[in-house]
């Protein structure tokens, strides 16, 4: 196995040196954070006035956590730590109607992000000779742009096609001899199913590798994709709050994701108590940015569940490895790579006067893809007897969901009182997806 590095000095940095680097940049991060109205207040409460107050990484662990709700409350600018003219890009989450989370980036921030993606790409054995088809959505969703710049900097030939349009994907894969794709695992399985329909023989493709991200998947899914396609699959982790993909990446060893600890402090904590977990113990992933100037985040609770893999990796990288994501400690749903909270759906549909009192969210597998169905009870009085009015209502619900949370579900209308009613806490989400 030939190990290549993008930035060997940093990737194989001695742990002690890495921790000194972390402390120094942590202090800078706290200094930046103190420029934001949010952290000035939050850190001030625990007696922090500048980065010099953090004298060790143990001191750091006494700092308060930052939650997704904090980010929402900071919308749009309460976490901006640089002057606006220094910011060169904004990414927001799809967010609850009107209240997404927002991350600003300076050019330097974007360069750091790109550097991490480059390290990941190279660690999986890719080189400038590869043709990279980026099948993740471009735009505000960070999956597309994040890998794009890294792949270009590595010198790969990038096909920025984005998600969907399977026939065209296959045509381009064939015509341009794509060797590497970036894709959600469920879409990767789906594309394989469409080979015959597209009239494309597997042997006519040059595909060798896939970076899978955007949704948690099991080791079995990886093996299945590797088997049916005859390729190597590498897990890729990130979230928009931490830039996007590239926070962690699997190397050739495929034994967990190296979290780039010169850019982030990784902690795994008990979701209830916040206590730090031992290596190997599952808990919530908590990340702190170390080099991001525009939007520093301290001890951000990701709500993702994972564990640290003990020991060193054979590849020689000293940055610790994290397991694949084992689940969530909130009710977030991931539908074909898109993050959705049931509360977002509720907010959109219950605001409509035509909708009755009850609804249900059903998630199933349709082949290899996720299918989201929203069952909605109509408000009895709106029924005029005309079928067109009911169809218009259905259309309106779909359009409102599309506009507000960028999902395109199947909407089913039901009679008032027909959906399961609950005494006490309602269980409105039915997730029938089983692992393939």
């Amino acid at each position, binding site marked *: 196995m030939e190990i290549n590095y993008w930035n060997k000095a940093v990737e194989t940095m001695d742990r002690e040196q890495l921790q000194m680097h972390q402390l120094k940049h942590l202090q800078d991060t706290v200094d930046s954070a103190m420029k934001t109205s949010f952290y000035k207040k939050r850190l001030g409460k625990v007696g922090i006035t500048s980065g010099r107050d953090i004298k060790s990484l143990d001191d750091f662990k006494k700092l308060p956590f930052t939650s997704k709700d904090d980010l929402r409350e900071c919308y749009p600018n309460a976490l901006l730590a640089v002057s606006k003219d220094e910011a060169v890009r904004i990414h927001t989450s799809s967010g609850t109607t009107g209240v997404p989370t927002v991350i600003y980036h300076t050019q330097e921030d974007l360069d750091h992000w790109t550097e991490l993606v480059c390290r990941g790409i190279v660690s999986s054995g890719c080189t400038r000779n590869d043709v990279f088809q980026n099948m993740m959505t471009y735009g505000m969703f960070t999956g597309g742009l994040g890998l794009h710049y890294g792949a270009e900097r590595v010198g790969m030939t990038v096909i920025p096609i984005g998600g969907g349009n399977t026939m065209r994907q296959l045509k381009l894969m064939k015509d341009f001899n794509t060797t590497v794709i970036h894709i959600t695992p469920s879409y990767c399985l789906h594309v394989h199913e469409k080979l015959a329909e597209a009239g494309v023989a597997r042997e006519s493709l040059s595909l060798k590798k896939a970076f899978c991200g955007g949704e948690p998947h099991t080791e079995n899914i990886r093996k299945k994709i590797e088997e049916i396609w005859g390729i190597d699959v590498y897990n890729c982790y990130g979230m928009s709050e931490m830039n996007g993909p590239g926070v962690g990446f699997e190397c050739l060893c495929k034994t967990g994701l190296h979290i780039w600890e010169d850019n982030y402090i990784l902690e795994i904590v008990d979701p209830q108590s916040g206590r730090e977990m031992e290596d190997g113990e599952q808990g919530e992933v908590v990340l702190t940015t170390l080099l991001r100037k525009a939007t520093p985040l301290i001890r951000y609770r990701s709500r993702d569940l994972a564990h640290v893999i003990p020991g060193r990796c054979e590849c020689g990288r000293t940055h610790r490895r994290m397991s694949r994501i084992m689940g969530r400690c909130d009710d977030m749903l991931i539908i074909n790579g898109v993050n959705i909270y049931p509360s977002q759906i509720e907010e959109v549909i219950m605001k409509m006067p035509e909708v009755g009192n009850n609804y249900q969210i059903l998630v199933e597998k349709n082949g290899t893809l996720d299918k989201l169905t929203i069952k909605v009870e109509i408000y009895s009085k709106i*029924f005029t007897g005309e079928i067109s009015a*009911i169809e218009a209502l259905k259309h309106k619900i779909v359009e409102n969901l599309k506009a507000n949370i960028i999902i395109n579900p199947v909407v089913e209308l039901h009679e008032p009182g027909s959906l399961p009613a609950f005494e006490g806490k309602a269980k409105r989400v039915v997730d029938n997806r089983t692992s393939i």
Partner: protein
Amino acid sequence: MKINQISVFLENKEGRIYEVCELLGAHDINIDALNIAESEGFGVLRMIVNKPKAAMAALKEKGFSANQTDILAVEVEDRPGGLADVLRVISTNQLNVEYMYGFTLRKSDRALMVFRFDDPEKAAKTLQANQIRIIRGSDIQES
């Protein structure tokens, strides 16, 4: 002139039409005509019954989403081209039909056609001016 039609919103669920018919039967309500308009995942059951008021009360009590619509029931001669004669009048007078369906009444040798017009008043006048007979609501329904 106008006849009262009852529409019921039905989700796509087994036995739902049966439940409506059974309910009306239990209330001694007779269904003269029935039609189902279906769409993806749901349907609208349209009925002409002899006791619309009682039917509405029974349906509402059982939690059905129901509503009443005015329709016209038109006599059509029971021979080839009979319906075409009526439709010719409708077409040349540019009356807009939203939907239509057929039914028969006992003791009648004529076919009957139910029309839902977007403007029932205008349609009634036009049809009568063209010697097309419209069934009176009071002939078949209790007020």
